């Protein structure tokens, strides 16, 4: 085996990995780390005892004085000085190895990513890309099962790894059956380390870069195995590529949250906790304080929120807000699609300073239009309040203003409507107020599009319903909270069923909102019936009630009815053999679930003469 492994990643960067260094402990890395920690603790305690005992001895013999502390002739003091070495060495052995290694070489994967972006140099030596746990796993598996590397690694990840619970909670897999299926699958394949090393490490690096992790940790290892090597096996468990994609997107989101938390820990010491204008440079903003709320401050109090799979949308929004003229955007999306959550995501990024320079020291203030309407006695008063708010925004600067449900202003049915719209437009264009508004698609076409100047002023950003795989991950996040709150277990297959039938019920709402509501209904139903587990059957029952057609497995009485559908229909219709058989087949196909979910179950176009029993 070559000692140095050269890997070319997907962004054409050559990375050199020292395999000898990686596997130098020959399967003993875990034991060695454990031994080091124990020995470190022992030496540390011993050092402390040796440091303290001589002083107690001096105090006990009434010979202690502060002058003696610096007297090196006392044998006890010599011992206590030596003990300093023991303390330092003990702490060194007990150290967090990840921190030490990264400080020694001052480089981890995120530093490497930055280097690759900024530098033309193409070859990097990779020494500290692995977390301690992954190093231990790789070391053990390589030493014991070099020729069946992938099989042993898969087995380890399913049976021993800390992250194996993700397979159950996020993909709904049964670990025992998965393990057996994996062993069966890899029986006939070549999985020796020599053959697959370069590809395997390249995949690991690519995945870590995609997820934006500082280290290749157990989660990255699991994600790589799932996406690259277990795909075919997972298909047997009805886990599609889309499900895997959703899972990896969720992992990326979790990592982003962790990175943000880490950054916030550092930034929070430098960020103001109270009102932003602490240098008393700008005028007071009483109207804005009364009718709006500071979303950035709220996010600091409540915690970060990150939208999954909305990177393109947030980038468009940031580009719009960066513009020097008409920095105004309109977010278009159906109720429940996550418009407010999207605003919270923007606020989170502003706090973390993951935004262009101009927006870093800004605050995001959301104007509560309902409050303005309630307070304003007349339309003139409303206009006056709005003008004052906008003037305050102009004066205070470093502020982004947001109007949720903007169509509330546009749909005012009085003569003053156009005046108000003109006021808003003028203020935004003249002073380039950074504005974000939200509305629904129908309202956008009804109120914004007809006024051409208004439509031209705002950059539209469409928030579509998230894809099925992303919806599943959002709902699984919700499941965690519901399970904790109601002390129930919600199976992943049940959540999958909700996503599967997402297009078939509650047409006024969109996912993930309607999925959430159905989950809450399921929890209430389970509590009423004293169920401890919410499974597919309970969801099927609820879905059947909502859709009006049975969903899920076909019961025996229903099967008989379906089989004899023609006879049942003939009880009411005489003749029409072709039509009845066509309708019955279509209904049977729909019930068996072998039709496209985007098309209607059956479409009948009956064309016949007047009074020919069409009904």
């Amino acid at each position, binding site marked *: 085996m070559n000692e140095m492994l050269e890997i070319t990643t997907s962004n054409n960067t050559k990375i050199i990995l020292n395999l000898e260094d990686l596997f130098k402990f020959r399967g003993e890395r875990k034991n060695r780390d454990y031994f080091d920690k124990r020995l470190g603790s022992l030496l540390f305690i011993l050092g402390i005892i040796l440091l303290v005992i001589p002083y107690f001895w001096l105090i006990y013999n009434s010979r202690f004085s502060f002058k003696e502390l610096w007297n090196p002739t006392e044998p006890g003091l010599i011992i206590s000085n030596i003990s300093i070495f023991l303390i330092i060495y003990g702490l060194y052995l007990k150290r967090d190895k990840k921190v030490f290694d990264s400080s020694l070489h001052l480089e981890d994967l995120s530093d490497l990513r930055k280097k690759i972006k900024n530098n033309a140099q193409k070859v990097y030596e990779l020494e500290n890309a692995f977390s301690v746990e992954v190093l231990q796993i790789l070391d053990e598996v390589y030493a014991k099962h070099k020729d069946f590397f992938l099989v042993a690694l898969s087995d380890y990840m399913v049976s021993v790894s800390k992250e194996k619970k993700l397979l159950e909670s996020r993909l709904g897999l049964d670990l025992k059956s998965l393990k057996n299926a994996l062993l069966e699958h890899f029986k006939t394949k070549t999985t020796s380390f020599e053959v697959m090393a370069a590809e395997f490490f390249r995949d690991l690096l690519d995945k870590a870069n995609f997820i934006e992790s500082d280290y290749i940790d157990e989660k990255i290892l699991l994600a790589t195995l799932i996406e690259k090597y277990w795909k075919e096996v997972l298909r047997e468990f009805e886990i599609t590529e889309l499900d895997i994609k959703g899972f990896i997107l969720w992992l990326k989101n979790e990592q982003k949250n962790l990175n943000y938390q880490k950054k916030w820990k550092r930034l929070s010491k430098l960020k103001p906790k109270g009102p932003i204008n*602490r*240098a008393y440079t700008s*005028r007071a903003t009483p109207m804005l304080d009364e009718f709006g709320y500071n979303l950035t401050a709220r996010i600091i109090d409540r915690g970060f929120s990150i939208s999954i799979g909305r990177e393109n949308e947030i980038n468009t929004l940031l580009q719009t807000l960066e513009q020097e003229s008409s920095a105004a955007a309109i977010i278009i999306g159906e109720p429940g699609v996550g418009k407010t959550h999207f605003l919270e995501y923007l606020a989170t990024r502003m706090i973390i300073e993951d935004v262009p320079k101009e927006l870093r020291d800004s605050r995001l203030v959301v104007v509560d239009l309902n409050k303005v309407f309630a307070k304003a006695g007349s339309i003139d008063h409303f206009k006056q309040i709005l003008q004052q708010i906008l003037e305050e925004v102009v004066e205070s600067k470093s502020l982004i203003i947001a109007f949720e449900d903007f169509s509330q202003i546009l749909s005012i049915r009085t003569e003053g409507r156009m005046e108000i719209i003109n006021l808003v437009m003028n203020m935004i264009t003249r002073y380039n107020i950074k504005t974000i508004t939200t509305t629904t698609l129908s309202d956008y076409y009804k109120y914004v599009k007809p006024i051409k100047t208004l439509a031209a002023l705002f950059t539209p950003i469409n928030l579509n319903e998230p894809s099925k795989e992303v919806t599943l991950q959002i709902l699984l996040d919700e499941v965690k909270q519901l399970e904790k709150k109601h002390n129930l277990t919600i199976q992943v297959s049940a959540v999958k069923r909700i996503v599967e039938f997402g297009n078939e019920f509650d047409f006024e709402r969109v996912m993930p909102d309607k999925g959430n509501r159905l989950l809450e209904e399921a929890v209430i139903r389970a509590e009423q019936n004293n169920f401890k587990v919410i499974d597919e059957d309970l969801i099927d029952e609820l879905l059947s009630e909502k859709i009006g057609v049975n969903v899920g497995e076909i019961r025996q009485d229903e099967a008989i009815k379906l089989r004899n559908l023609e006879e049942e229909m003939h009880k009411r219709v005489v003749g029409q053999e072709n039509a009845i058989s066509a309708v019955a087949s279509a209904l049977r196909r729909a019930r068996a679930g072998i039709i496209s979910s985007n098309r209607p179950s059956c479409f009948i176009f009956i064309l016949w003469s007047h009074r020919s029993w069409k009904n």
Partner: protein
Amino acid sequence: MLDIFLKPFYWWYAVIVRSYFIYLFLNYSFYLNKTDTIPMFKNIFVPLFGRKGITNRIISLFLRFWWVVFGFTFSTVLIIPMFLFGILLLILPFLPIIQTYRIVT
């Protein structure tokens, strides 16, 4: 073998002392930030509340100047014990060596 003796020293300064001084710097920034010294210093010539008359400019400069002086003094006094502990961490590995040298000489 040399590694075993040298690495702990290297680790002590590269990790422990470095992270302590980063922590100390962040704490100092926190105190300066909490007392509004930094924003006041940044805006030392900016009049208060956006009123740009000459009288207000003079009053603002006077107020901001003393604010910065007091804020800076207060933060520095608070950070001194931490700084002394930092110095102790810096010399700690050399303490036994100094003592040994004193015994020998």
